[in-house]
């Protein structure tokens, strides 16, 4: 149990750090031409997730046979990959077979410690940004370029929308 809480603590500290770095930056750096601060913070978090996912998937797929297609890859992300990080599987995976996948986690680990309620919903985006990057990074290394967005309707459940971009 103790090693699980470590990851939670590290994650929430990374979130706090990323949100605070830009706040303390001098006024001159935050000119009007730059994107709104919140967006910038989240993209930092997303990028950290991306690089983590990119490296992690290399290790996790070492003992796995080659994936047949995109759906098989997504299934791997929902089961083995998710278990390695969150100690549980994704509860539901849906797809329209045209490049859109919806991963639903009914008790998303980073949201389980927040009390459920509509008031807390505004805090949800910063706790899911890292995971969006994680999914995007792992898929990118497996040869699927995608856009990942998250949707939180009620804490602690969370839906990740993966839109595969085909060239």
């Amino acid at each position: 149990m103790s090693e699980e809480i470590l990851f939670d603590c590290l994650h929430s500290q990374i979130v706090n750090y990323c949100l605070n770095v830009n706040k303390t930056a001098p006024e001159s750096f935050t000119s009007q031409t730059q994107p709104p601060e919140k967006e910038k913070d989240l993209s930092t978090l997303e990028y950290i997730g991306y690089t983590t996912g990119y490296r992690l998937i290399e290790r996790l797929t070492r003992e796995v046979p080659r994936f047949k297609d995109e759906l098989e890859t997504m299934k791997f992300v929902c089961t083995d990959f998710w278990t390695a990080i969150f100690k549980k599987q994704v509860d539901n995976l849906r797809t329209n077979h045209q490049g859109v996948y919806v991963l639903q986690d009914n008790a998303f680990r980073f949201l389980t410690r927040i009390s459920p309620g509509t008031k807390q919903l505004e805090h949800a985006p910063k706790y899911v940004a890292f995971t969006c990057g994680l999914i995007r990074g792992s898929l990118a290394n497996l040869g699927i370029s995608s856009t990942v967005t998250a949707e939180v309707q009620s804490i602690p459940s969370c839906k990740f929308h993966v839109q595969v971009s085909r060239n």
Partner: protein
Amino acid sequence: MFPLLSHRNHSNMATCIAIIGKDNTPLYLAISDMDKELDLQYRVHAALDVIEEKCSSSTKMNIESKELYLGLLYSTDNQKIYGYITNTKVKFIVVVDSGNVALKESEIRTMFRNLHILYTDAICNPLFSPGEPITSKKFDKCVRNILERQ
């Protein structure tokens, strides 16, 4: 008694180990005999085509072809070329001397497995940026160990 001398009497386990990235850029190349460098590079290049053919989705996917280990890609009079591909489309290519008859298939498999483990360790180095050639000295040393072991 004289391990160094006895080593010289045997051929190396492999003559060349190459790691090729997902977009077919060379990430790493280790060669035991530098005089044959160009020749071995040609072998590796030719092997990439064979790998591509083996992995293309148009060919039938049987159980065997789902393995990461691709087996013997092709052989020439003097060399045998083996291949391995990770799920992230990184290719490992090993060129072995045909004269080395003592080398078993299972040893080749083990060699690839060890290579893969070394590679994933190198990737997880925070100073390594994905897609760049691998310059880690530790990695190089370990791969050369594989190369020269018999």
